[in-house]
């Protein structure tokens, strides 16, 4: 299977008066696994549908493998897709559904049969092949949809939340399968998900979308460590990054309380004459020691092995992740290591301090 790059240039899409995509620019390299991540309604599905060609952009161009496909109908783009709501044909058996794309390409029956059983083994639906979609559970239907997409030859694979309806165990397993498959075959994938674990484990790169705009594209590490703006910071991670509003007058203060910042940052703020900014740091990096700022734990959220402490600091809540039971006292002192502090000016990350 060859793989091809995908490029979106200044894509705009309106539904009536409502602008759903506001100038999307995105480059997916050949063989890359790109994850589209964003809140519900931000335009992920719409983006996929544009790449697939079932929807036309109002302006902008779409390229697949360097070729402008903006005006090509879907059947000539050689893409494959897992639909968010499956769209497996109710009048065909699972077997025929999976083989549909091959049949449309005039592939002979024997080859189709081989491919169908290969893919269905991968998705653990071999025993369902002779059933009809109405006889399947939601999760089984979803796997048929994935199988159909994988069985069809394609230059680009589009997957719209393909694992959303599976139980946690099966989801983890399928995630592993997809990852392994991608390593082996190196096809170009655009993968939509809400699930951050999925995004972070699967994606070569992640594109984070809000309200029809891509806010940041980067490797999972970049997105996690250096969120481009406060929106991304507040969206990625469970729980997401702490964001404190800080006033600076030689000392950093949060709601009037002093917040310890390292000399390097202090110097940066002074040289640029910055008076207000947002300070971000991940709950996982908060250190709970004898020294540092002091606050009161107002809530403990049990998440299994760990717990999330909600620490009242001024009018803010600072969240910290620790091993459960490690902190007994409700009065705590906390600090944040220098390399994990992020400064946001006008909601944008300040990169070189």
């Amino acid at each position: 299977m060859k793989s091809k790059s995908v490029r979106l240039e200044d894509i705009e899409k309106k539904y009536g008066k409502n602008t759903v995509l506001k100038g999307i620019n995105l480059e997916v390299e050949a063989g890359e696994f790109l994850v589209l991540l964003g809140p519900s309604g931000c335009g992920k599905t719409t983006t996929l549908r544009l790449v697939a060609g079932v929807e036309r952009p109002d302006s902008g161009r779409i390229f697949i493998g360097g070729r402008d496909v903006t005006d090509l109908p879907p059947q000539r783009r050689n893409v494959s897709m897992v639909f968010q709501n499956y769209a497996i044909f109710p009048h065909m058996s699972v077997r025929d559904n999976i083989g549909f794309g091959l049949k449309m390409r005039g592939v002979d029956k024997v080859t189709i049969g081989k491919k169908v059983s290969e893919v269905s083994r991968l998705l653990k639906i071999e025993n369902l092949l002779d059933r009809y979609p109405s006889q399947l559970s939601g999760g089984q239907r979803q796997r048929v949809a994935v199988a159909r997409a994988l069985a069809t030859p394609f230059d680009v694979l589009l997957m719209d939340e393909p694992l959303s309806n599976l139980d946690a165990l099966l989801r983890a397993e399928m995630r592993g399968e997809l990852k392994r498959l991608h390593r082996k075959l190196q096809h170009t994938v655009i993968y939509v998900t809400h699930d951050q674990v999925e995004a972070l484990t699967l994606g070569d790169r992640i594109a984070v979308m809000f309200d029809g705009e891509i806010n940041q594209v980067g490797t999972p590490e970049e997105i996690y460590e250096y969120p481009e703006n406060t929106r991304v910071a507040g969206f990625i991670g469970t729980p997401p990054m702490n964001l404190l509003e800080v006033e600076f007058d030689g000392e950093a203060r949060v709601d009037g309380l002093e917040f310890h910042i390292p000399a390097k940052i202090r110097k940066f703020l002074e040289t640029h004459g910055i008076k207000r900014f947002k300070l971000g740091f991940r709950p996982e990096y908060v250190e709970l020691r004898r020294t540092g700022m002091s606050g009161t734990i107002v809530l403990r959220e049990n998440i299994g092995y760990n717990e999330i402490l909600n620490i009242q600091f001024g009018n803010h809540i600072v969240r910290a992740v620790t091993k459960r039971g490690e902190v007994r006292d409700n009065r705590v002192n906390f600090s944040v290591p220098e390399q994990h502090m992020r400064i946001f000016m006008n909601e944008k990350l300040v990169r070189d301090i």
Partner: protein
Amino acid sequence: MRSDEKIYLLLAPLVLYILFFFLSPFGSAFKLAFFNDSGKFTLDYIVKTIKDVRFYSALKYTVLFVVTIIPLQLVTAFVIALYITRRGSSWLMFIVSIPLAISDLAAGLIFLSVFSESGFLNSFLYSLGLIKRPIYFLSYQNTWFLFLAVVLAEHWRATSIVLLILVAGLQMIEKDFHEAARIFGAGFIKEIYFVTLPLLKPSIQSALIIRTIFAFQMFAVVLALAGDMIPVLSGEAFFWYSLYRNPHIASVYALIIILISVFFTFVYLRVMRQEL
């Protein structure tokens, strides 16, 4: 009273009403067709009906109407339905459904304005210079044209009901299936053959059955356009009752109509199950 009993009580008037008006005539029709006025069993009426020359042409024309009009309607309605659903054009749907509530009598009279001697078709042909004087389209010498005129009028009037059924069916086939078919490589023709038609099968079936049953009862449109120059089964039943005052033979015709409708319906169901 138990709640189930209450339900049957609510339903009773309906069931009794329908039993009375639909089933009791069914029995009486048999009685009229097979028993004479003094109550004796007889096959005279059947014999008399089949010996009548008009019976054969009525049967021939009725079947001819059914087998030309209905396939034609199905195909056009399908094309229009596809167009309307894909374009999501509801005002077009409204315009096309205007003839829906027009009776076959009125439709016949409306098409009279097209085909009559000084009608619009003649005027149009004349203004194009194709004819020197009006043609008598609707005359007994032009049986094939009479037939065509009735087909057109029926097509104009009753395609909208097929269309309505098919559009409703198409709308139930999710947009997703259409898109999935395209993405997995089906072009227009393949999509229709492998996806649209099989999914639309139940709607096509209902449209076919409903239309066939009503087409076998066709008569006012024929009467309006062709008078008694083209006999049809319902028309004969009508004439035998109201002109010749013979309810027995009229009943024989009525029974033939239901027999032939049921036969066609079964054939459809059979064929549809195997095909597609």
